């Protein structure tokens, strides 16, 4: 088992003809991902890299059963592409684009409310279920199938977390990058919930960072859970001077100043194991004596 995507998930690639999209779609196909269709703005194109293409999500769902989308459209087009995916009631959209305007995200968030769609990203390496499905741009060679769920708010530190689980031999059930941006489609809560329900996942690794308040809501959510699986958490940015994270002034003014130490304490207080150094993750995992 795994969460959100496996080898049977039927995937659409939005914006499939782009350079990055073509490159990564081919990699994902080779990985075993069941890509069934693509969309493109190019007219008069029937197929691209062997995949049937359509001019809209609505047209694609008429011809194919689609569960999820990997969205490769550039940042300025994400809002409209999300609208299409939500209207077509796709269950999952993984949005790779970096640089989506924050006002567009506000609109997307209100479109998502009450919809059937879960959005991962933007500005994320995506989602990977080792040996089954790759929805994104993850390097496929570092992942090992296993029982640790990985959720991260930092693209590059996701790799570090994956390498840590590899060191224990426990591998990953599913790896998810939530996205590095100020506002993301789905925060930790939605993902923690699914990992808790997944029988294969035995423990979680959670990577957070200095800005935003998503770690706080994760702590609140975890504390309210009845059946908890262990979570090992690392929050990056303790050494970052406060004056350098002013980009998030809005959060500070409206919610108060929350430091990395505060976040660590919050997570610790609800029963997560918080490590000071990302390379301690494998040690804590080893101590759990998990049987994959």
């Amino acid at each position, binding site marked *: 088992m795994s969460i959100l995507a496996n080898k049977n998930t039927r995937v659409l690639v939005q914006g499939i003809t782009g350079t990055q999209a073509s490159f990564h779609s081919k990699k994902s196909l080779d990985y075993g991902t069941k890509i069934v269709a693509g969309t493109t703005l190019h007219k008069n194109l029937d197929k691209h890299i062997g995949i049937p293409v359509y001019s809209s999500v609505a047209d694609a769902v008429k011809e194919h059963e689609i569960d999820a989308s990997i969205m490769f459209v550039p940042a300025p087009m994400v809002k409209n592409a999300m609208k299409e995916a939500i209207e077509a009631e796709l269950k999952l959209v993984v949005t790779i684009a970096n640089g989506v305007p924050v*006002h567009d995200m506000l609109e997307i968030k209100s479109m998502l409310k009450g919809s059937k769609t879960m959005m991962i990203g933007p500005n994320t390496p995506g989602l990977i279920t080792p040996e089954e499905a790759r929805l994104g741009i993850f390097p496929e060679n570092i992942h090992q199938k296993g029982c640790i769920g990985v959720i991260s708010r930092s*693209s590059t530190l996701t790799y570090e977390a994956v*390498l840590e689980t590899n060191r224990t031999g426990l591998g990953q059930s599913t790896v998810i990058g939530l996205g590095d941006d100020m506002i993301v489609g789905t925060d930790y809560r939605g993902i923690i919930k699914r990992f808790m329900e997944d029988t294969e996942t035995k423990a979680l690794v959670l990577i957070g960072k200095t800005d935003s308040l998503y770690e706080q809501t994760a702590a609140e959510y975890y504390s309210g859970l009845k059946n908890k699986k262990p979570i090992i958490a690392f929050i990056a940015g*303790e050494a970052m001077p406060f004056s350098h994270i002013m*980009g*998030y002034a*809005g959060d*500070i003014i*409206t919610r108060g*100043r929350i430091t990395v130490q505060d976040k660590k304490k919050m997570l610790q207080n609800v029963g997560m194991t918080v490590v000071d150094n990302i390379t301690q993750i494998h040690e804590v995992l080893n101590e759990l004596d998990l049987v994959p």
Partner: protein
Amino acid sequence: MNIHEYQAKKILAQNGISVPNGKIAYTPSEAKRVALELTSRGPWVLKAQIQSGARENGHFISHEAGHKGGIRLVTQISNITYEANQMLNNVLVTEQTGPKGKLVSKIYIETFAKTLRTFYAGIVIDSAISSITLLISKEVNKDIINLSTSDYTKILRVNLFPQENISAIQTERVADFLDLDKTYHAPLAEFLNKMLSTFINLDAKMIEINPVGVTKEKEFIALDAKISIDDNALYRHKDIARLKDDYEEDEKVLKAKKYDFQYNEFDGNVGCIVNGDGLALEAMDMLKNYGYSTACTLNVKGGVDKDKIATGIKIIMTNPRVEGILINILGGFLRCNLVADGILAATQEIGLTMPMIVRLEGTNKNEAKNILKDSGLAITFAESTEEAIKTLAAKLEANN
């Protein structure tokens, strides 16, 4: 992206918000001329145009500039040239500029607006609830971030909706908080709605009017203005993108930006080249754990090639604080041998006089390792971030 006060006020005026009449001047004689164009009788307000708050309480480094701050009230036209001469081409230091201060190359001259009272109004984005939030306070001319953390109750927070006007109930809450009676409700609502529509139209991340002045005629006037616009949305605001003032930015930051890199300076002595925000944070944290701190981080982002890495190294090496270099680059599609080539190209051009530790994760890792080993340069290859930082710390220790 931040813009200057005079630019922000022009935008507010275009959106129907009242601002005092004002004009920009680059020389003392121009200052006098525009002051007279604005009004034949003062007083006038002379305002240094640097992107910083707390200008009034700031001080100029040079004695020639006198002991007054960056905002000056002038009542006699004969004094305009004198005051403008003191302010122009001198460096103003405020609590927000840091000790280096910022050079004042232009001043904004305004007619003095008579107001009965003032208050703070701001609009920001609250990411926790993906909402636009209006902030109101009676405290003016204070740093709102400090105020919000020191006395939370002094700020009223109202969540706004992009597609809707401020409601009657919300207006009443704001008016009550400011002790404004019912007769102010209509002009207050109009003012706040114009602020909100400006915020939306501009793709702003923050608008602060600090202070807002309230006149005898119940008019709301923006006496100061600060606008910060989402860089990611500048493509749809070409006219605003042009307002960017490069003088406000550090030379190395600008150079880095040309290559789409992100460069940050701190007060330590290790320079870090990474390809992601998370890796920069990780390096800073781990250096701290080993008793060292960061001089600068250069995020080369995403894909890395030979030229990118060579340019990055040159930017880092020109920072005089740097005594050791950490290169930590991760990515499945990264061709490590190209990074190694870039390191060699840069070090052959400008030399290598300090310890450099390299950690690469990707394809052709062993090839990269051999390239660096065969170069004969004092470059160490590490297998993990921790090993890299441990090694670097040991080398810095040995050098001291």
